[in-house]
């Protein structure tokens, strides 16, 4: 898989799965736009590793829950590198809580970040991908899209919508050489899942047939495959990568 010189946008690239994906493409000498919202230091460290491994990195601070910021990211990338080959919509947040006590603003933040950020970034890159008759959009969803937990109404709804969006967009742009797929990770060792894993580590582990949590690099492997020419006939798919957690009945 050669990504040398390819332009990749990764949102939420300072930590966790986004960071792992950015590093993986960086090691292949790609040009990577690292979007982050607030953690400048962590994003800077990711950029440094990419540069040291032979890739190019461009740091872009932007809050993707704002539509104008999504366009800003893409404008910035195209001004610098003139194209976009791969978009990885990875940035996501949780604001867990039972629906009845959920703040409206928390609901809104989750939907605007996880769903609308994905939608408007995709919209912004498509003209460029269409002009080059090739492109890859990879949405990081979650197994929670289908099998949520109590307290995750907003997160699950946002990811369920990302899955539907993935399928319809794939239909719309297939004939232009653009594929759109989603990766649905299970329980991965990241800061985001830290709280849940900390609280119920044993119980969750008992439900994972493979017997361990996933690591971000395993998600990055799949993202890179979906971005490659080898995956040219795969589109509109939601691919679970979850150690089998969604296979059993949980007892």
């Amino acid at each position: 898989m050669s990504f040398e010189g390819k332009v990749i946008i990764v949102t939420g690239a300072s930590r966790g799965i986004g960071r792992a994906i950015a590093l993986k493409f960086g090691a292949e000498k790609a040009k990577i736009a690292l979007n982050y919202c607030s953690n400048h230091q962590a994003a800077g460290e990711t950029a440094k590793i990419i540069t040291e491994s032979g890739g190019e990195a461009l740091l872009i601070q932007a809050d993707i829950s704002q539509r104008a910021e999504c366009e800003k990211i893409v404008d910035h990338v195209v001004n610098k590198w003139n194209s976009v080959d791969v978009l990885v919509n990875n940035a996501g947040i949780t604001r867990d809580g039972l629906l009845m006590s959920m703040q409206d603003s928390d609901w809104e933040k989750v939907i605007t970040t996880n769903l609308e950020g994905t939608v408007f970034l995709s919209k912004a890159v498509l003209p460029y991908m269409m002009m080059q008759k090739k492109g890859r959009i990879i949405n990081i969803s979650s197994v929670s899209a289908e099998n949520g937990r109590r307290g995750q109404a907003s997160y699950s709804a946002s990811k369920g919508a990302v899955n539907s969006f993935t399928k319809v967009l794939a239909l719309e742009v297939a004939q232009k050489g653009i594929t759109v797929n989603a990766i649905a990770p299970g329980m991965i060792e990241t800061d985001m899942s830290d709280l849940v894993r900390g609280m119920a580590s044993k119980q969750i582990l008992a439900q994972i047939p493979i017997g361990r949590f996933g690591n971000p690099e395993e998600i990055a492997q799949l993202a890179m495959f979906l971005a490659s020419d080898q995956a040219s006939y795969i589109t509109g798919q939601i691919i679970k990568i979850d150690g089998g957690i969604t296979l059993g009945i949980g007892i």
Partner: protein
Amino acid sequence: MNKEELYNKVTSCLVEALGVDEEEVSIDSTLTGDLGAESIDFLDIVFRLEKTFGIKIPRGGLFPEHILSNPEYVKDGKVTPSGIEELRKNMPHLDIEKFAKDPNVNNFADLFTVETLVNYVASKLN
């Protein structure tokens, strides 16, 4: 830019966007009937025209998707009188009077020929 240069550049955009051969394109080819354009191709054409000519085409400025997908303006597969009025107002580059004689939505795409695009771009460049 003279009309021939303009036509040649528009043809290149169509060849790129639709994957047709240059020989298949003539000034009176219809985009859908003769050249096989589908809805996403119209967007593709718009982006390529914008880039090639350095012009800005507002969404819905060249192809009136927003009118033809509005239930207020389309009933039983036909564009309503208020829809026709809206088209007259927003699409001066199209022969709406010809369409008004049989305002079946499916006929609308026939109004778009290569010449329509050439004239539209010319009006933008002026």
